[in-house]
């Protein structure tokens, strides 16, 4: 459940403030990801109708986030996420995606 400092490795190029926050708060990745739990379920274990993020590879989540950012996923493919991801830096998203990738996947989910 707990994310250790290994997440730091992902922070290459991260804003200094984020690295500092991570140094102060060992649970930073979890705390950032928690904003997503409201829709995608606690630890990414979603109820029906929203995508589960638990156990999905970090690279896959980051690729999709990139598509929301670029506009490649928009319209019906991105009703809300394109607006939401613009509130986060890539470094923050990398931490969040790393957190979800470490959660036990939901049975039967992708």
């Amino acid at each position, binding site marked *: 459940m707990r994310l250790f400092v290994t997440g730091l490795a992902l922070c290459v190029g991260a804003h200094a*403030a*984020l690295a*500092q*926050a991570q140094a*102060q*708060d060992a*649970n*930073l990745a*979890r*705390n*950032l990801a*928690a*904003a997503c*739990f*409201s*829709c*995608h*379920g*606690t*630890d990414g*274990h*979603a*109820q*029906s*109708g*929203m995508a*589960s993020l638990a156990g999905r590879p970090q690279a896959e989540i980051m690729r999709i986030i990139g598509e929301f950012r670029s506009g490649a996923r928009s319209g*019906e493919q991105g*009703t*809300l996420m394109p*607006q*939401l*991801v*613009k*509130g*986060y830096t890539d470094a*923050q998203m990398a931490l969040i995606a790393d957190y979800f990738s470490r959660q*036990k996947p*939901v*049975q039967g989910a992708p």
Partner: protein
Amino acid sequence: MQTRRDFLKAGSAAGALAAASYAAPARAQSVGRVVVVGGGYGGATAARYLRLWSEGRIEVTLVEREPAFVSCPLSALVVGGSKRIEDITVGYEGLARLGVKVIRGEATEVDAEKKTVVLQSGQKLPYDRLVLSPGIDFIPGEVAGLDDPKAFDTVPHAWHAGPQTVLLRRQLEAMKDGGVYVITIPLAPYRCSPAPYERVCQVAWYFQKRKPKSKIIVLDANEEIQAEKALFQAVWNGPYKGMIEYRPSNDVKEVDVATRTTVTDLGDKQQADVLNVIPPQRAGAIAGKAGVISVNQRWCQVDWLTLESVVRPGIHVLGDSAFPASVMPKSGHMANQHAKTAAAAIIELMSGRAPNPAPMMSNTCYSFVDDKRVIHVTSTHAYDAAEKTMKAVPGSGGTSATASELEGRYGFAWARNIWADMLG
């Protein structure tokens, strides 16, 4: 039509799986006691995450006056008649299973010196830290004629979901075709800025199907629609054209309950067949008792790193009662976000560590314009260390382009997910 079981049961397998993996260690070493007052979006989320994230090391007591949680979001659908109150009601069993001690009662006093909450029953609950999430109460004296709470048996506010929501629905059902529904909206800030306009859509949807000769009058104390203006206008001037009369800058100061008549500050009178008054609001009464109301005698200023009151250390205030940071809405979703930041910070503080110095919060409100179609507004807020407040991240956030059934499905999915996120 979807039944409550279909509506809620979807995804229960995932819920069960989650519950199993979150079972708290039976006898974890306690690091202290937290009492949470109020089991809504803020308080229930705080109670759950204090247990989950402390791995059972914090003893959590939740005080709630109602037997079950009834959601304000989606309650407009009960007013419109496409959902029933049971569809938006969830019990507290999931929290109890996680080891939260759920007490049904009313917190009446807080002794901040002795760190004790007193319940109406006389029971005293000692705490190391207190979380207040009491939502809103109405400001006495603001609307003449409404100071006796019995007035709301005739003129419902329906701004706390539950019996009031059902009462408003019954009055609309009993109203004759050709009747007039009047809704009054107080000056912002009030609980959930798009919600009055969403409610207007729901009543219009019902009238259109069942009472097409009826009319809706909106008396808004504000100068304009307070959220998603263009989107609401598109619906009011589209499918509901001719049904809704919107009167801005109409601040209702007086109500004659017997005749269901409103009087504005300028003396304009309006009689209604169904009168729905949403009075001006402030932090829940217990916040006043605890001495944490610090802004305009209405709201509680908090430290955004911890949601701790700036005037009473050890007391954290979540949700609608908190004095919002700039452009931060008073919504259930926002309260859920406050609660997670607070829970994480409380655990760090009680473990002798510093809290996250850079919290992030995001908000989304899904508003139903009929039984299926939804519009959203979303924003993301980051902590600004220099100004010690939360600020909307420039360039982020926004609204739907138009109402859609796709977002309607997301709206229902949002509810299932956030209810599971707060209640287990």
